[in-house]
């Protein structure tokens, strides 16, 4: 990869990697560190990217995801990444507004549910793209996404209009 190719790749994908890292970690400074490390890995080992396996964006998101999970395991070695039994309760909506409530809800999801929700809802990736980026079976991605959305509906129930469905508030 030439210097020019690298710069082009950085400018094309930096925003999506930063958005993903920020939404997964909830921290600007950590997100910046993740973006920097992610592109340095690409610069040092460009052969790690195989275009036959998927696009550059999915590759970079996969690298960023691994960096985030590495950090998570280091900081919280005893907390599981995926908690299938995890069932969230409705958030108490404070005066901080709807956007902040959404942020709190997403960041409260177990990490693997959170990444599936972020990639599907915010980056509009298909299930196949998420499976490639996270190096996960398609069925597992579907399951995490389903549980993640369920948990979000429960937590954000006070902000969602009732549609004849119980969100766990009654």
């Amino acid at each position, binding site marked *: 990869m030439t210097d020019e190719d690298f710069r082009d790749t950085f400018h094309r994908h930096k*925003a999506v990697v*930063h958005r993903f890292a920020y939404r997964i970690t909830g921290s600007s400074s950590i997100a910046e560190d993740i973006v920097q490390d992610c592109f340095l890995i690409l610069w040092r080992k460009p052969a790690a990217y195989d275009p036959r396996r998927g696009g550059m964006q999915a590759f970079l998101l996969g690298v960023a995801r691994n960096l985030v999970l590495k950090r998570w395991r280091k900081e919280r070695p005893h907390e599981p990444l995926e908690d299938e039994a995890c069932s969230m309760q409705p958030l108490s909506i404070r005066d901080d507004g709807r956007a902040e409530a959404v942020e709190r809800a997403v960041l409260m999801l177990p990490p693997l549910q959170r990444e599936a929700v972020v990639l599907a809802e915010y980056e509009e990736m298909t299930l196949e793209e998420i499976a490639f980026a996270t190096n996960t079976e398609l069925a597992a991605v579907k399951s995490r996404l389903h549980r993640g959305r369920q948990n979000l509906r429960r937590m954000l129930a006070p902000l969602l209009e009732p549609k004849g469905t119980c969100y766990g508030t009654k």
Partner: protein
Amino acid sequence: MEPNDDRQLRDLLQEWQTPAIPASLEQRVFKPHRSWGFLLHGSIRVPVPVLYCLIALLMFAGWRMSVRTSQTAPCVANCDHTTSGAC
């Protein structure tokens, strides 16, 4: 169960926006790699067996030094300054 394409939930999720990317990020990624910085801030991973070998080597070197020093050290107690002039 809710359908996966819950429009209401999606619209609500979109209300959370991320901050803009700081300009400093580009400088961080493209800053020239300074090898001298590694000497001050770098770290290396050393396998435990190699660490044991290094500790053993250091202990052996220390022991050798102490043996050599004791063999070559002058005997102060028997030193006769009046006849030899120096130890």
